[in-house]
């Protein structure tokens, strides 16, 4: 009887815990209560973007580049030679994607991510990088990683965020979630 009571209390507590976890369904993982984390950008929520862009590569969050960068990257001529590949889309798709990207860009009005602001603030106003990996802040953050860990088969290139940033999909790039394949955790 006593055992039964304990079981009952335990299951009620469990149910409460689960309901809390489920309630926290706002696009951020329940592990990241602090949306103002220095390393958090708003995750991708646009299904067209996921389908059109993230079918070939990691779906970089719009908040990782400023508006002017997305505008340049999404020019028809640019898309035809998109980092060496043909990524052209029809005009309607292109404009929809561009609108999503610019509305959520690093320097967009509604974007309150500190990571977006940091990235954006380190880009010269006179330059328009189309690769996040070309930006100054990005380079500084990654300059200590040995080349062999980047070019290895499990990573391929510095552009493959999610290979090491295990929670990159959620827009979280904090150090505690870094795990480099065939190396392990990265402590700065």
């Amino acid at each position, binding site marked *: 009887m006593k055992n039964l009571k304990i079981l009952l209390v335990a299951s009620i507590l469990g149910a409460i815990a689960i309901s809390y976890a489920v309630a926290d369904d706002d696009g951020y993982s329940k592990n990241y209560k602090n949306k103002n984390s220095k390393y958090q950008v708003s995750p991708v929520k646009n299904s067209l973007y996921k389908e059109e862009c993230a079918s070939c590569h990691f779906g970089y969050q719009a908040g990782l580049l400023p508006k002017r960068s997305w505008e340049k990257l999404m020019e028809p001529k640019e898309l035809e030679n998109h980092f060496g*590949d043909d990524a052209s889309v029809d005009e309607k798709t292109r404009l929809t994607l561009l609108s999503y990207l610019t509305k959520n860009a690093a320097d967009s009005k509604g974007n309150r991510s500190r990571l977006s602001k940091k990235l954006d603030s380190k880009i010269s106003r006179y330059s328009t990088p189309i690769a996040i990996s070309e930006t100054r802040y990005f380079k500084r953050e990654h300059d200590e990683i040995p080349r062999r860990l980047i070019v290895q088969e499990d*990573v391929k290139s510095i552009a493959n965020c999610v*290979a090491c940033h295990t929670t990159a999909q959620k827009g979280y790039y904090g150090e505690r979630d870094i795990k480099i394949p065939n190396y392990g955790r990265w402590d700065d």
Partner: protein
Amino acid sequence: MKKRFILLLLPLAMFGADLNPKMQEYMSQLESKAKQENPSFSGFNYTRGEKIFTSTHIGKRGKPISCTSCHTTDLTQKGKNIHTGKILSPISPLVNPKSMAKVKNVKKWLKRNFKDVYNRVGTAQEKGDVIVYITTKK
């Protein structure tokens, strides 16, 4: 004689069996265009499609590349983008019903990937041939 007869019938049989109505319509469009481009055209062909898919060419990046570089030779298995490392769902509709199902997507990928591998767009005949190959390869 018998063998030749089967070979002639094969592409036709494949055509109807695996493609949805919209895709069949697209195939018919490709067929009439292929006839215009090549008067001796007599239907899409699995073997030609296989060659298109598995042969290596100097691609857009100026380096040797094949469709199989990313999609692998087993179309029922997952592929991997050789440049980005992104895992690709199997291209064979036999295991992935979403593949080769939407005309819009098929057109998009044929355009992109012919450029990536052949550094030019594909002809109507080539497109039809490779669709037959992808949709029926076991």
